[in-house]
């Protein structure tokens, strides 16, 4: 009986993994880096650098790189972090000062719990937003240091 339940649970997993709550969540942040946009973009667009600045890189995948718009897109195909269906992009623009760049980071994602309320603790919208904020709060200083100090 226990074995059967495990098999049934395994069969259900792919179905539930595809669904999610009705409202996508958003986190958006900006940082100023003391370097020309071309230099910032060269570091950012190279996915080999990703794990040097992005926390919890396991399960993240590059989606696209747009040199014209200086837009870098990636997603999590799987992650242990407290969100699901996470996709994100970063863009580079000149300014505010001479020789400076502003990087904007936008993430769209859903909470982990994918069915009707009540929602278990740690799997709600608030937890997902906290996790996405955590990624950016750790990732941005890393990216700034990597570009400004080369480490």
């Amino acid at each position: 009986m226990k074995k059967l339940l495990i098999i049934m649970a395994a069969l259900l997993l792919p179905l539930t993994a595809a669904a999610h709550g009705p409202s996508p969540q958003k986190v958006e942040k900006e940082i100023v880096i003391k370097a020309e946009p071309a230099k910032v973009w060269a570091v950012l667009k190279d996915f080999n650098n990703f794990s040097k600045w992005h926390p919890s890189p396991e399960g993240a995948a590059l989606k696209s790189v747009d040199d014209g718009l200086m837009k870098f897109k990636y997603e999590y195909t799987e992650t242990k972090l407290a969100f699901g269906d996470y996709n994100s992009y970063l863009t580079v623009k000149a300014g505010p000062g001479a020789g400076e760049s502003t990087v904007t980071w936008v993430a769209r994602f859903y909470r982990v719990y994918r069915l009707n309320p009540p929602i278990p603790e740690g799997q709600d919208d608030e937890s997902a937003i906290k996790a996405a904020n955590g990624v950016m709060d750790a990732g941005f200083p890393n990216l700034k240091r990597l570009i400004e100090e080369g480490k």
Partner: protein
Amino acid sequence: MPSASTLLSTPAIFGLLLCAWVNTALAQPYAYITNQGSNSVSVIDIADDKVVATIPVGKGPVGVAVAGDGKAVYISNVESNSISILDTQQNRVSGEIKLTGSPVGLVLSPDDSTLYVADWFEDQVLAIDTRDTTSRRTILVGTAPAGMVVSKDGRQLYIANRDSNDVAIVDTDRLQIIQHIAVGKHPYGLAISSDGAKVYAVNVYGNSVSVIDVKRSSVNATIPVGDHPYCATVSPDGGRVYVSNTQGDSVSVIDANANRVFATIPVNNTPEGIGYSATNHKIYVASWADDTVSVIDAVSNKPLASIPTGKQSRSFGQFIAATPP
């Protein structure tokens, strides 16, 4: 006592007539944009593509349905389990329909007498009498019902069941499912041609659009589009279908006769709800990530403008009025 006509000189009468004519000619319908992050609706005047009013509604507004006469608009508030009814002449909320479920998709019957509400979590669709909103019928459908359209005669309702990968056809008199049509993976938005012959289902995970031949009740084409498509709208002549690609940050333009994409238009980030404005031949698409609406010229397929709205604009459903209120 002199008659009115003798008081007005000929040029004055001509001027008044001209004013009346200009007003009629310039009066354009409005577009209603749901802003998930601001809990509001931005009202865009199509005449000059500017927001003329912002109306506070419930939490997490997503779906929109505009009455045929343009006088009422229904908004689904998925996070506060309610529908806001807007009075479009006053641009304010004139009523609220409280629900127990989570409303997402909305559509009105052609005579505006019935509002269909897709309840995401309860896997059901409600048919609410718009003259007495306490009068409700329900029908169990597939898993996570999302987008809906109604046939021209109002007798059939089409529902995209996102998590069961099908479109349900419902007989609206008996409120019973006639048929399930299998489509691509994760159908979300639906669109119907103005002659009612074709229904388009947008498959989010399939990166495609399924074309349903209504007469045959079957899919006769599957068209690859951009990354994570969400919603679609059909030109009034049925020749073009416009699809918003949420992760492609673009709109795919489909030649409906050839069933293929012939143009891809870059728009603002994370486009969701999309609508064709027949009065000025422009396409309006809500950009969730940029808090704007992108405007596209339907003749040249070129982006025309970007209109700032509230936060996380979505506008799921038919959000452009056919006539001014």
